[in-house]
């Protein structure tokens, strides 16, 4: 009976977790580039390709370290594309060195940084 309950509990938990595991909609970009048209020229975007991101719990450090810079508005992490996408009010205040240092302090390796001009 105990074994059955354990097995049942595991199946129940896994089903629940599977349902919760769908990737979140990238509402960050939607908000920045579609919904808030008047604000679009106030936001700069920086895409960083990062190597080694496999664990969401460990990668929380990336978000924590980057958001210490007040010029950064939002951060979106995409494991599938190995991407850390940064939106900031003033990209001059967010240097490549700062980004590289923050991500390396979080324990990962920066491969490339691409900056996009505001429209």
């Amino acid at each position, binding site marked *: 009976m*105990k*074994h059955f309950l*354990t097995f049942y509990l*595991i199946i129940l*938990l*896994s089903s629940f*977790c*599977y349902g*919760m*595991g*769908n*990737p*979140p909609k990238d509402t960050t970009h939607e908000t920045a580039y579609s919904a808030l048209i008047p604000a679009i020229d106030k936001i700069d975007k920086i895409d960083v390709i990062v*190597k*080694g991101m*496999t*664990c*969401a*719990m*460990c*990668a*929380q*450090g990336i978000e*924590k*370290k980057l958001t210490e810079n007040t010029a950064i508005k939002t951060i979106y*992490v*995409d*494991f*599938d594309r*190995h991407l850390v996408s940064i939106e900031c009010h003033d990209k001059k205040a967010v240097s490549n060195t700062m980004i590289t240092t923050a991500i*390396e*302090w*979080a*324990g*990962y*390796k920066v491969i490339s940084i691409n900056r996009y001009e505001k429209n």
Partner: protein
Amino acid sequence: MKALIFFLIILLELGYLVIAHPVTYKGGFATSALQTRNDTTLYLNYSISQKKSYGVQFVSLSDTNERLLFLTGNRLLKRYYFFDAQANLYATTSLGFNHDNTQLFPCLHLKADAENRRYYTDFSATIMKPSSALFTKLTSRLGWAPYKHHFSTLSTWFMIEAVYLNYHNSQLELMPIYRGFYKSLLWELGYNGSNTFIHVMLHF
């Protein structure tokens, strides 16, 4: 005072030799609580860099009623980066204090792990001598995730853990474990018919 300074220097030097999982990110804290039939463990550490952390660990061994306190130095010896995977070598050296026989003793822990978003494997070895007997523990895990988790979704893993423990007597145990984590909180539950395993960890 001299003895205290000497103790701290030794501890810091030990930290340079080795580490275990609790290295997070520069300036990050990690705390965890683990409960099994054999022991209860409470742990807190602080990462001074992405490669080094220091912590305090309390262990209560239920079989022998021993209470142990450790000051630990953790070191990430090597991290191998891949786009979809990561592998790590950690080492931890600790200076333990046995509350019951007021004895200081060193402890060494080595760990290797490799993971992607679908599979996980690790191997670790711990050696210490908290009493007249030598404590050795070998642990290995294999894990599988039913789906690829994302940065802000719940993660689910099913693992099987093999533990070989040699302290006064030896035993080999297999434990199926469910691991979940969401953002900075991780939890693990296991049960194998005779033993339970409960582990909670938080990064902040």
